[in-house]
């Protein structure tokens, strides 16, 4: 690359040395110079600390070497604590950077080709001046076509000439800056070929002239390069292709890459074949610097003159052409930005590392430098990130104060940029100005509080707005991510490294976004009518392509229509192509059945659940004369718009929507507005949302089909009924007065699988648990049976009074309670309210806990685990449940989707027969994870999104090594308040401090982690306890998850992995969703199918899918039977059966079944299935022992094996009247 060097030296003044340096760098890899300097500075700064450290160490150790190393360590440790978030963060960054380092061998390999390519470019012959006709005839029979941009020049009005002269060749982009990283899909090397200035005239920036000249230039180059490749015999593996650089159709480039050697016959060990390096080379044809007057290409200027109605009209009345102007102008600025960034890199030690961090961060969030006007996130890639960073190193504050300092660590630089993006508005209320002129030493970047309504990072030197390619939507998304990331960076409690840098959140749309709608646009001529006719010349020069126009139209329609119902919106054109063969002029798309360059469009939405289901879309106020806003509103909504008077007396233009159990209102709005404003024939596919919402059991309540999934009225009704009862019980005169009545049932926290339905007493959750406490007394018996009897005596008193005073309304009865193992004397008072709900009262005294603990200490050692388990069950049921219910109830008001999501998750678990093995609390806490610990994603805003995130989380949860530590608090919306507009302010102010206090503190978090560490010391593989799920309510992490059979825990993990894989490989559709909820019965050792004599679906309060609602209504109970004993007739016998089976065969088998027969028990709710797993040690023969505890048969005089035949007979006999089929392996 000597040539390159020579050419570079001819470049301008001060930049010269930089570029020279740069060129040398590209040849000599990883220049030792830099590392040398780094070493020096390190050892210099070491000295101070070393002295200090030595002073301390002197007394102890005289061995100099040892002191030296520790001193160095101390220094590093100290430094990282100050310069980075924490030691571990710094170490993680180091490792990450190491991971993504480019392979030197690959660089050498590709550089070899680059030299060759350079030489070949020099061999391309220069041409004479040619007219368009001459050009056309030259290319007529050639393989290569000229990639003219639309609209292509015609012969009549093209009187300028085309010519090829040798370009100035230089490396640009991240490869030149050496900030490139390894990417699995390969990286590209940008080579700039600058057209000589004499090819242009002053006015060429107008009306595509310079672009056409460039197209011809590129065509000429491509033609001759392909000939040269043939000559050099390297054409067999080298491929040439046109590509729109960054999706900009105005900027075709030539891309060179190597074909996969497997696809071509010739075995190629050619020196120039760089296929394995995965590099590709972009030849970008640029314009010389300052060839056009920059001022004329300002974003607000018009540079495409189109015919106007009035030919005499001033061209300044024409609409601005920012995209075109940017494309032209930025084509002349590659080199100056390279110099600018290079200079900054030289003066900023950690620039390279910080830019790599930025690149990764953006990549993981789906951002790139691509034009975002044609859909998807874009307009902000590594280049924009590093340029912003450079600008902030030179100022960036309102007064030009420096936001970043050159001595910052990579972490500080990255964080500074993120913080700037998160807190400073570059769109509506301000913009950032900077100077890319490296000679202008006083250049100061400045934040100006004046917005252009478009993201603006304005370079005063080149007059380029770096963020032109960014739409407002894309910018808002970026800002949102920056905010989230800043929050994560500020989080000193949890390790957020993976969330910030490692997780690719844009991989699966259904996890990244709440709702995804597929839009199929109609075929054929219709498109002309609905789209092309609206794509007027003025729109054309503004949007350049019809695809950009369409994306903009859909985006603005939906944004206007949905307003604050959504948090963000992205439109993606699926199948959008940006490359095309060199024999074609441009992309000709054949997919999608229309002439547009995409297959179909995808609308991706982040929902704002607080507003999404509101019934009324409120428009402007009504007034006598129609305001423009009102006119817009009316014409936008058409027949939907109406005038409504609200409670406060205001009369407002508005639209009214109706809710549905199967679809969010957003779906109806999207459907309505797209049909109205795009075309009647547009097909919107949103079946996924519908299917998921229909999976949530529908309660047998009036109008339940038109009740929003977010509606919790059914729960509120139950609570209301409880409040009435509460008042009655509180008023009663009892030997000890009532201290508290605390509801702990799952319906009180909106998480019961079935919604509460009056009189639906077959529902296993029908009786909602309540804990009653009396005033303190020393008189409670000091023996557990008697204590329970004494409690029952109190309940009897309550029952007596209730019967006497409210016997006509309330019914009550006692049952035995088996929730605490070995405590056979617990009785509960079950009260049925006149509203049709049931509550189960149990008494808690201050004596209980001590007694259970005493039992542990008095027990034989081999019995201790059993008693500890009893204690845990007691604590979970009587003590922790109160806090759990209160916490979940409280925060689920802020996580609107939690209730339906957890219900769907419970249904999923039950359809896979797992729910019976897990406690409600554990399931709820696991389901809460994607809500309270959403990073790096958003808080779920749809049922499917929440559900999929739970599955994703479980599938990736390595419970052996990772505890789940939940911070059960509401989302921190108030974050913004914590930030001051001036960037120099302190990070944490009083408000955030207050918020912090509710959060888990570092000490608490560490404490929980230590608990986990201790636990795993005794059970390192998690054989006894798998799921460690802790929160402030339960720092032990074991309260709800002890005693889950290992096989069940691993099965849950396996099932979620299968589910996630299924969705990843086959997407979400009817089949996959159905499959998700189908139990895999073949995995079990045997399967018993059951049928109960009484169907329980309707009496569980579940509605049929059928249209004939009345029929289903009839069989549902509408009152309680007079005789309480009759209640049992509509109870689930299979539950008791499975319970006793599990008790009897505890040691040898694990039985599972559907817990909610009304939900998963077939069409009528009268089917169940029992599956059996044989525990591993009974799968093989073993020695006969007295305490073998399994149904075995002898093999010989010492060995026995499980007697499956007899077992099956026992199970079949036990299931007697219920069993209909028995299958075994």
């Amino acid at each position, binding site marked *: 690359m000597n040539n390159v060097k020579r050419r570079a030296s001819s470049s301008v003044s001060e930049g010269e040395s930089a570029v020279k340096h740069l060129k040398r760098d590209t040849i000599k890899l990883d220049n030792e110079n830099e590392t040398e300097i780094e070493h020096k500075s390190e050892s210099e700064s070491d000295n101070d600390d070393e002295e200090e450290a030595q002073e*301390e160490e002197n007394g102890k150790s005289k061995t100099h070497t040892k002191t030296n190393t520790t001193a160095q360590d*101390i220094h590093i440790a100290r430094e990282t604590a100050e310069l980075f978030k924490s*030691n571990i963060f710094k*170490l993680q960054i180091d*490792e990450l950077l190491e*991971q993504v380092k480019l392979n030197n061998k690959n660089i050498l390999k590709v550089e070899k080709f680059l030299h060759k390519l350079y030489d070949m470019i020099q061999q391309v012959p220069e041409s004479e001046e040619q007219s368009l006709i001459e050009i056309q005839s030259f290319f007529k029979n050639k393989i290569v076509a000229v990639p003219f941009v639309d609209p292509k020049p015609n012969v009549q009005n093209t009187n300028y000439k085309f010519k090829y002269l040798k370009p100035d060749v230089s490396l640009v982009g991240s490869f030149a800056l050496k900030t490139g990283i390894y990417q*699995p899909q390969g990286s590209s090397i940008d080579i700039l070929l600058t057209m000589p200035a004499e090819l242009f005239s002053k006015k060429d920036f107008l009306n595509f002239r310079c672009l056409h000249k460039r197209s011809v230039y590129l065509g000429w180059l491509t033609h001759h390069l392909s000939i040269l490749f043939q000559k050099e015999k390297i054409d067999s593996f080298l491929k040439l292709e046109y590509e729109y650089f960054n999706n900009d159709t105005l900027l075709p480039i030539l891309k060179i890459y190597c074909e996969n050697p497997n696809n071509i016959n010739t075995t190629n060990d050619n020196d120039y074949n760089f296929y394995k390096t995965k590099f590709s080379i972009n030849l970008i044809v640029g314009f010389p610097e300052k060839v056009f007057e920059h001022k004329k290409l300002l974003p607000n200027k018009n540079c495409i003159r189109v015919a106007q109605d009035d030919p005499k009209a001033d061209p300044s009345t024409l609409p601005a052409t920012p995209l075109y102007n940017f494309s032209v102008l930025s084509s002349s600025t590659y080199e100056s930005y390279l110099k600018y960034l290079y200079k900054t890199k030289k003066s900023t030690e950690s620039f390279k590392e910080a830019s790599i961090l930025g690149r990764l961060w953006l*990549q993981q969030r789906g951002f790139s430098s691509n034009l975002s006007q044609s859909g998807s996130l874009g307009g902000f890639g590594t280049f924009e990130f590093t340029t912003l960073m450079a600008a902030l190193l030179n100022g960036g504050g309102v007064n030009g104060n420096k936001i970043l300092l050159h001595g910052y660590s990579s972490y500080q630089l990255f964080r500074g940029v993120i913080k700037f993006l998160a807190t400073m508005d570059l769109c509506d209320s301000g913009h950032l100005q900077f100077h890319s002129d490296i000679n202008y030493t006083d250049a100061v970047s400045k934040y100006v509080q004046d917005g252009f309504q478009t993201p603006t990072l304005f370079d005063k030197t080149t007059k380029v707005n770096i963020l032109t390619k960014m739409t407002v939507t894309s910018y808002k998304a970026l800002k949102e991510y920056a905010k989230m990331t800043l929050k994560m960076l500020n989080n000193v409690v949890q390790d957020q490294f*993976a969330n910030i840098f*490692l997780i*690719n959140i844009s991989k699966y749309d259904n996890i990244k976004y709440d709702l995804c709608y597929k839009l199929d646009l109609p075929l054929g001529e219709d498109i002309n009518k609905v789209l092309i006719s609206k794509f007027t010349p003025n729109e054309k020069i503004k949007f350049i392509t019809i695809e950009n126009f369409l994306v903009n139209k859909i985006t603005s329609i939906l944004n206007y229509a949905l307003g604050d119902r959504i948090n963000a919106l992205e439109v993606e054109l699926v199948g959008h192509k940006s490359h095309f063969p060199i024999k074609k002029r441009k992309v000709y798309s054949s997919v999608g059945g229309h002439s547009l360059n995409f297959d179909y469009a995808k609308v991706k939405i982040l929902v704002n659940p607080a507003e999404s289901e509101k019934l009324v879309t409120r428009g402007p106020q009504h007034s006598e004369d129609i305001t423009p806003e009102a006119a817009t509103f009316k014409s936008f909504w058409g027949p939907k718009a109406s005038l409504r008077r609200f409670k406060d007396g205001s009369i407002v233009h508005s639209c009214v929507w109706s809710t549905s159990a199967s679809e969010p209102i957003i779906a109806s709005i999207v459907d309505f507005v797209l049909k109205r404003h795009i075309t009647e024939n547009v097909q919107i596919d949103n079946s996924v949302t519908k299917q998921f919402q229909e999976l949530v059991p529908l309660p047998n309540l009036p109008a339940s089909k038109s009740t929003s999934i977010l509606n919790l009225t059914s729960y509120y009704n139950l609570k209301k009924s409880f409040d009435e009862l509460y008042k009655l019980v509180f008023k009663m005169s009892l030997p000890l007065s009532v201290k508290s009545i605390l509801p702990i049932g799952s319906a009180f926290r909106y998480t019961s699988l079935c919604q509460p339905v009056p009189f639906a007493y077959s529902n296993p959750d029908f009786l909602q648990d309540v804990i009653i406490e009396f005033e303190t007394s020393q008189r409670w018996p*000091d*023996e557990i049976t008697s204590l329970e*009897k004494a409690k*029952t*005596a109190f309940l009897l008193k309550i*029952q007596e009074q209730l019967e006497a005073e409210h016997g006509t309304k309330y019914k009550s*009865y006692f*049952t035995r309670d088996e929730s605490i193992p070995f405590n056979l004397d617990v*009785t509960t008072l079950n009260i049925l309210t006149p509203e049709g709900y049931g509550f189960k009262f149990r008494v808690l005294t201050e004596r209980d806990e001590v*007694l*259970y603990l*005493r*039992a*542990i*200490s008095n*027990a*034989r050692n081999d019995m201790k685990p059993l*008693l500890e388990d009893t204690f845990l069950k007691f604590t979970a049921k009587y003590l922790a449940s109160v806090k759990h219910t209160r916490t979940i109830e409280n925060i689920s008001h802020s996580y609107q989707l939690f209730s339906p999501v957890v219900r769907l998750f419970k249904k999923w678990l039950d359809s896979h027969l797992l729910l019976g093995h897990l406690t409600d609390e554990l399931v709820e806490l696991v389901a809460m994870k994607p809500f309270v610990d959403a990073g790096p994603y958003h808080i779920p805003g749809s049922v499917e999104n929440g559900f999929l995130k739970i599955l994703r989380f479980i599938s990736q949860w390595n419970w052996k090594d990772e505890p789940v530590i939940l911070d059960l608090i509401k989302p921190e919306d108030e974050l913004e308040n914590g930030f001051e507009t001036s960037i120099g302010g302190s990070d944490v102010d009083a408000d955030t401090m207050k918020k912090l206090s509710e959060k888990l503190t570092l000490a608490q978090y560490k404490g929980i982690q230590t608990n986990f560490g201790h636990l795993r010391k005794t059970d390192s593989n998690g054989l006894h306890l798998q799921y460690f799920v802790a929160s402030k309510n339960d720092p*032990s992490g074991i309260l709800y998850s002890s005693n889950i059979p290992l096989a069940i825990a691993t099965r849950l993990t396996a099932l979620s992995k299968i589910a996630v894989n299924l969705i990843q490989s086959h997407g979400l559709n009817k089949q996959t969703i159905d499959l998700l909820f189908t139990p895999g019965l073949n995995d079990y050792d045997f399967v018993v199918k059951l049928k*109960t*004599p009484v169907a329980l679906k309707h009496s569980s309060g579940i509605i049929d899918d059928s249209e004939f609602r009345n029929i289903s209504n009839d069989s549902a109970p509408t009152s309680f039977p007079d005789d309480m004993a009759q*209640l049992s007739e509509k*109870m689930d*016998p*299979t539950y008791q059966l499975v319970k006793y089976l599990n*008790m009897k065969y*505890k*040691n040898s088998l694990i039985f599972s079944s559907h817990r909610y027969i009304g939900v998963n028990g077939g069409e009528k709710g009268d089917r169940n299935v029992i599956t059996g797993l044989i525990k591993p040690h009974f799968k093989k023969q073993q020695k*006969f022992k*007295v*305490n*073998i*505890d399994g149904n075995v048969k*002898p093999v*010989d*005089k*010492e060995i026995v094996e499980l007697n499956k*035949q*007899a077992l*099956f*007979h*026992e199970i*079949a*006999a*036990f299931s*007697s009247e219920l*069993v209909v089929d*028995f299958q*075994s392996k």
Partner: protein
Amino acid sequence: MVHVDSMKNGFLVIPFKLPEHPVLSKHENGKSVPCHYMFMKKHQSKQEEESNCIFLVNIPLLTNVESMKTVIKEICDKYDEVSYVEDLLYNDEFGLNDVNLSSLTSDLMSVPNDSSETRFTPRNTALLKFVDQSSVNNCWNALVKYSNIKDSSKFVNWNYSAPSFSTFINFYKPIDLEYLKDDVHSHLAIFEQREQEAQEEVQGSIVDEDGFTMVVGKNTKNLNSIRKKILKKNPLTKHEAKTKPVTMADKKAKKDFYRFQVRERKKQEINQLLNKFKEDQERIKVMKAKKKFNPYRSA
């Protein structure tokens, strides 16, 4: 299958033919006759109530004393032996009485004057008690002969006492109110009486050598040290890190009085920092080994 009449450790293998079950028979065509195998051995014990017993292992579903009487009679009849079964002891099929919470929390309600531990046998085992020595011997003789039968068609039939649909439904039935009241009343009456007695006993009798009356029993309610001891048994705090409580002396002591204290503290701080750093490095190593730093892997 090889015929096994007894196990090495002296247990006889006693097979029973199982009844056909409609849902199983269709899968069982051609397979061997389904049999249940019980293991029996003469029980030796010094306990009075455990004399004349045979030890049973692997007891079929829902076995009770009647079902045992039936099969024992059938076996004895085969060999003209006479034997009378009295009771089936310690059969706790569902493990309901694995733990006696009452006796673990207080000795008040346990059987009085029973100083020894409660007797029990392992799960899925029981003692079959006969009326006298000769019954046991007669039965044993018959069992020995029976265990030698090789032809499965000559095995004695076992009939499960299968629960019905209503058995399961009955679990949901309310407790009879009158019964409950009586039960609570009588139980509490006994308890109060026992408590009273115990208290009197304590106050009346235990006077130690020095003439002091001992008032502290094993499970006394309010003694702090005992309470603490019990609280330590909390399984929830088992894995928690133990912290040393700060005493008043610690609090009052000056920490920067001597130079050496300052120096020590500084050194300690630096060591802590260093240790933390080393720990972090270790953690990173572990994470690296698990390939936790690949940004292109996880989603």
